[in-house]
């Protein structure tokens, strides 16, 4: 059985359709990325899947329970964490865990076992007595995720969970997510940082309430990017940019650090473009030292898909 099954889910607010007839599945134990710009319908979808917002039409099952008719069971079987951690700053780490355990009805031996587990997986052993408010963002983040799964939910929703932490902390956080997922917990993540989406097993892109693409990070890059992006290293970068822009030969041209990135028009070949660049720049006495095709990022995929929509 799939962890989440969404069928024709729609949510309207007055005349505005926030989520428009959306259907998809999330497999058990996978890390599933749900991506979209602000206002694309991500939060509305999450709220419906968590059983706190009723759909206008369609339905979904979360952990086997219908969000329409069994929203209470849905709530008890999921965990939720957002970037605005709901931790109490004036409580210690241990007190926060106790508090959230209490909210989910854990007590006695059960609570103390789960507490030990949270401290272990979040790598917080020995830090129990520290005041939460004084902790670095990275540790708060792991604690927030730990408390969100204290009641052993089958599915956990992470709504824009990271931001502003150093890369080592970010890796620790994703290690924790990987641990949860390998223990069978389904992880549903929203983010608009596309480099982070690379950590997901499968991704769905949503825009204006509709699903516009889906697949593994690799599949998305292979299936949706048909235009070639070239990186050019040359002299007088800024002058060269103006020349290349004015040539109208490219879809777009932009400065990228010490280089220029040009996006070829559809159906244009790499060889053809390379010849054009070297020739055009040399006419202005600018020397081209390197032109390389670059692999697209998920951000390129996302932007390409949205440009097509416009």
């Amino acid at each position, binding site marked *: 059985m799939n962890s989440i099954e969404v069928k024709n889910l729609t949510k309207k607010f007055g005349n505005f359709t926030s989520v428009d007839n959306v259907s998809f599945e999330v497999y058990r134990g996978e*890390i599933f*990325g749900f991506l979209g*710009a*602000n*206002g694309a319908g991500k939060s509305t979808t999450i709220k419906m899947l968590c059983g706190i917002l009723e759909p206008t039409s369609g339905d979904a099952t979360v952990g086997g329970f219908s969000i329409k008719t069994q929203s209470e069971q849905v709530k008890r079987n999921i965990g939720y964490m957002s970037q605005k951690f709901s931790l109490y700053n004036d409580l210690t780490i241990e007190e926060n865990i106790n508090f959230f355990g209490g909210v989910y009805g854990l007590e006695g031996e059960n609570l103390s076992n789960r507490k030990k587990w949270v401290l272990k997986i979040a790598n917080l052993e020995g830090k129990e007595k520290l005041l939460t408010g004084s902790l*670095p*963002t990275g540790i708060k983040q792991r604690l927030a995720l730990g408390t969100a799964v204290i009641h052993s939910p089958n599915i956990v929703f992470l709504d824009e969970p990271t*931001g*502003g*932490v*150093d*890369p*080592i*902390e970010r*890796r620790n956080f*994703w*290690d924790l997510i*990987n641990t949860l*997922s*390998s223990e069978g917990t389904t992880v549903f993540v929203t983010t*608009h*940082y*596309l*480099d982070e*989406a*690379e*950590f*997901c*097993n*499968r*991704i769905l892109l949503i825009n204006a309430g509709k699903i516009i693409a889906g697949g*593994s*990070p*690799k599949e998305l890059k292979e299936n949706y990017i048909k235009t070639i992006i070239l990186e050019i290293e040359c002299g007088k970068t*800024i002058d060269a*940019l*103006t020349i290349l822009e004015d040539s109208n030969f490219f879809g*777009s041209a*932009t*400065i*990228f*650090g*010490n280089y220029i990135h040009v996006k070829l028009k559809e159906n244009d070949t790499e060889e053809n473009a390379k010849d054009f660049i070297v020739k055009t720049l040399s006419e202005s006495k600018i020397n081209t030292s390197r032109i390389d095709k670059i692999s697209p*990022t998920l*951000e390129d995929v*996302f*932007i390409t898909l*949205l440009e097509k929509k416009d």
Partner: protein
Amino acid sequence: MQEIIKISNLKKIYEGGVIGIDDISFSIYKNEMFGFVGPDGAGKTTTIRLLCGLINPTDGNADIMGYDLRKDKMKIKDNIGYLSQKFSLYTDLSVDENIEFFADIHGVKDYKERRNELLQFTRLTDFRKFYAGKLSGGMKQKLALACTLIHKPKIIFLDEPTTGVDPVSRRDFWKILSDLIKEEITIIISTPYLDEAERFNRLALFNNAKILKLDTPAKIRESLHKTVIEIVCNNIRSADKALKENTNYEIQTFGDRLNIVADSFEKDFPVIENILSKNGIEIQDKRIIPASLENVFIHLLKTKKTELQQL
């Protein structure tokens, strides 16, 4: 290259002893796009505020366009623009009126032509009569940038302009900055995102109130002297586990692949292959990829930690 900012032993200790930035020295060149990159609390914002003259240094000094940061603050302020992380626009004023307001503050009399230019440049001309409060997040940010540019500053400081901004607006913002660099302006930007760091001419990696590394993105990547091996295999998570249990490689696990930081492909790939095959994992694809700035940053932080432990 002409130095436009020269920082000498700049230090800021806040009340209560918190070290904002600890004795940094470096120069920024004219017309450069220079990045301050690092996590929250690393000292990026403190450095920007010091250079804008908003807070006073505890020690050290800086020369900005020939002016002394400690003595000629007012002259410096006339020549710079500053976009703070929590920029403030007047939500009940229109786009036009917001820019006019900033022109007034800076004593710019003839602002109308410049305003038209800026609106066109930020693609906000069609929205000039809209209340700022009605704009999307990305548009508000572009308006704030336009306001920062009204007095034609020579240097602009942008404090985390892309944090919390969606990818489309983020890309749009970078395109605008790429156009702006043609105006011979010097741009200093802070960001916590290492994937953005490739967009700078040079960057400083901040950590713990100090600078870990300062150079062009390419030179910083080369400084790692390591190879990154990318592996696609049938069970990513077991592979990650097996490698972590048996080796000390720095490993990054993505949704559909692993990146392993190794000394060389020839030496390390057979080791990796051996461990994986012992665990019944089949390698489907392998290749050498360039090190990312994130690889370097993590390597530097880890080396630093080990050094500290050995002391």
